[in-house]
């Protein structure tokens, strides 16, 4: 029986191996006969089917649907008004500039280029901030936001001297829990979303936070809370900051939507900067997936604000030790684009316009959806649609209503009633309003 095998034994080599090169080795072809015995002798027989990803499940079902009016309001990726993926003009221009530079493909440092880290921290903390100028931040490039959270969680699991439990808002991004658990942290929660108002349960949050054991980790969504779209007001953030300080909790901010929420990068960083002002030495995960549309390039950053430069050096060394056995060093295609945009004045200006454009379109869709529901004659209060911010909207629809809107109108969303506003366009917002009214009236 001729196989790739026979060729290999005959191939010549210019290299000497220790002995006996080119000698053919007798072999027995595998007998594929009894599946049962194959399964019994396989390592993998005990591997069970893992739970399906709820969000991917939505996309898959959507793809199979033949209704021309179908809408995919599942995955959180921005779409333009034609429903197409959007490559930012500033990104395109950055790519052209970078291509001219003829940069090489040599390994990046373990924590990525220091400049990228510095630029990311400055974006988050504000140009000229004291933390970066005194060098007391550790800012490393990571595999987007997920990677930043994983590096952070792993770092805390190993080095956090307090209670290795992270308190997530209820609800939180579905992936927060597995990231922290797989890193070795415990996961608990504090009240956040109020389903009766479709808004922020400020009193509930404050009550729960005041009961979190001291020296625990508290996770805060910097802006555009995922999945609810509900953010605390400025005054509420200030109070939360004081309480977190009083409780001696360690604040871990997840900022995946800076610029994307309000359209203004400084506005969206308000909470992070308030906490810094109040003296918290936070850690922060940042993502460029949404605000620069670099989803598949996997660009993010993880920052630890330290006491001083000396501590930063120690922390940095330990973080590198955690990154190396994960992936050695990060991919640069995306981070080079980010650095180019953030250092090139014209591009930076263009980017701020691009991101404002995306945020504005989303804000417009929110308004049109609310107006559309009013036009349909809905008597329900849909104020939360415009009060909420960012890519997602917690509509308040029940699982039954979600089921109905999917089967009867081919509108796809997650069971919790969350819609991705980015998936709405001016051509289908009317249809969506009609569908939502029909199932909720």
């Amino acid at each position, binding site marked *: 029986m001729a196989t*790739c095998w026979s060729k290999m034994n005959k191939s010549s080599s210019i290299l000497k*191996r220790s002995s006996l090169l080119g000698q053919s080795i007798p072999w027995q072809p595998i007998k594929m006969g009894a599946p049962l015995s194959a399964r019994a002798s*396989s*390592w993998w027989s005990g591997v*069970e089917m*893992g739970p399906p990803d709820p969000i991917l499940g939505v996309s898959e079902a959507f793809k199979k649907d033949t209704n021309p009016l179908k809408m995919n309001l599942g995955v959180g990726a921005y779409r333009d008004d034609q429903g197409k993926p959007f490559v930012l003009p500033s990104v395109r221009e950055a790519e052209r500039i970078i291509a001219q530079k003829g940069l090489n493909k040599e390994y*990046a440092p373990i924590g990525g280029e220091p400049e990228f880290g510095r630029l990311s921290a400055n974006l988050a903390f504000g140009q000229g901030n004291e933390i970066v100028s005194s060098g007391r931040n550790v800012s490393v490039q990571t595999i987007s936001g997920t990677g930043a959270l994983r590096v952070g969680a792993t770092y805390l699991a190993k080095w956090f001297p307090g209670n290795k439990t992270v308190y997530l808002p209820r609800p939180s991004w579905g992936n927060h829990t597995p990231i922290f658990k797989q890193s070795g942290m415990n996961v608990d929660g504090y009240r956040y979303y109020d389903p009766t108002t479709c808004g922020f349960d400020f009193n509930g949050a404050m009550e729960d936070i005041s009961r979190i054991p001291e020296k625990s980790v508290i996770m805060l969504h910097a802006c555009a809370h995922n999945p609810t779209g509900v953010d605390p007001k400025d005054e509420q953030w200030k109070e939360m900051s004081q309480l977190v300080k009083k409780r001696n909790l360690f604040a871990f901010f997840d900022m995946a939507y800076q610029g994307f929420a309000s359209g203004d990068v400084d506005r969206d960083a308000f909470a992070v900067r308030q906490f810094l002002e109040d003296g918290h030495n936070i850690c922060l995960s940042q993502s460029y997936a949404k605000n620069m549309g670099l989803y598949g390039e996997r660009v993010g950053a993880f920052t630890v604000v330290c006491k001083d430069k000396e501590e930063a050096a120690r922390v940095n060394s330990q973080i590198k030790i955690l990154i*190396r056995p994960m992936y*050695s060093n990060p991919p640069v295609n995306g981070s080079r684009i980010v650095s180019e945009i953030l250092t090139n004045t014209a591009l930076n200006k263009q980017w701020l316009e691009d991101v404002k454009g995306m945020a504005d379109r989303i804000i417009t869709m929110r308004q049109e959806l609310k107006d559309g529901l009013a036009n349909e004659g809905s008597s329900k209060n849909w104020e939360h649609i415009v009060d909420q911010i960012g890519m997602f909207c917690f509509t308040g629809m029940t699982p039954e209503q979600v089921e109905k809107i999917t089967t009867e109108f081919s509108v796809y969303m997650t069971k919790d009633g969350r819609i991705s506003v980015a998936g709405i366009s001016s051509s289908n917002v009317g249809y969506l309003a009609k569908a939502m009214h029909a199932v909720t009236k």
Partner: protein
Amino acid sequence: MSHFSAVGAAPPIEVYQLSRDCQADTHSQKINLGVGAYRTPEGKPWILPVVKKAEAQLAKDIDAETINHEYLPVLGLDSFTSAATAMLLGKDSPALKEERAFGIQALSGTGALRNGAEFLVQQLKKTVFYFSDPTWGNHGLVFKNAGFTDARTYRYWDKSTCGFNFEGLIEDLQNAPEGAVIILHACAHNPTGIDPSQEQWGKIADVMQEKKLFPFFDCAYQGFASGDLDQDAWAVRFFVERGFELFCSQSFSKNFGLYNERAGNLTVVVKDKSLIENMKSQITLIVRAMYSNPPAHGSRIVDLVLKDEQLYTEWRGSIKIMSSRIIEMRHGLRERLEKLNTPGQWNHITEQIGMFSFTGLTPEMCQFLLKEKHVYLLKNGRISMCGVTPSNLDYLA
């Protein structure tokens, strides 16, 4: 008061520190023989022509909106993983024909090792793993961080002969507990450059089959070692033919020169294809909690090249250039050492294969080279042949 006052300074990672030190050195004849990255005869990094062409094509595709920057699937670009797996196993592999092999895109070789190791711990509750003594500096950490609790070595390098301690290897594998995971270098062993012969691989397979040990191949140099993709994949394919289930991590850092794009693949070969969906679903959960989905750019480049007949041929030519240059430098170094009547045997330099050579120099000798001669190498005596060029050969010898 800081949370992190008790965080001690970690020791710098040797290979990166070496590069930093070499960079800071102002000596005109300094040579960096540390990190394993290919260098041209002029000592410069090399972007492969096919990579440039692929990137130009991708730029056009973005303009034409046929591709964009959207998320890849969790397990990666399907077209890329199929091509990568087929490149490793051979298009005609029985495992592929029988649909019992698949690939998972990973963050280069490191990421593939980590994904595989995490799966073995989480799903098979593995605790024991073996790596060669010596091995790539990161193997132990990858597996430990993935949750393996019992790290053991199998003998490999024989200091006295500057050669292969095959008997020691066999003995150590004979004594391994059932189910232990064995990290094997598919070709161009890092750091020694010594690969088992085909007959020796046969004996290794015998022991592993008898003792029910699990093979986890690390294939970072396919094509780069001998210049021939199929030859370099011989050991992995042999194990597949022998009926093993195995993992193999693949890196495209060296053979495509895509070091900083982190393009890699974890090839999985199983006996029973009905288990594949379950396995994929579990690996999905592991990936999701670590980085969600892989970076697109590097995999798109590799995919483009592997699928285009012309580019693929051109690429194979480039691999030949790289591997040939290294072989040439090996011969050059050995000749000069022998001409200088340097004490000791130097045949191992040409008998070893791949990027690295285990010179047999002691830590003290390495220190001397570093301090007095500005030759930067790892203290275990490993030199990267890529750092050797026609212009520094004489100085080095």
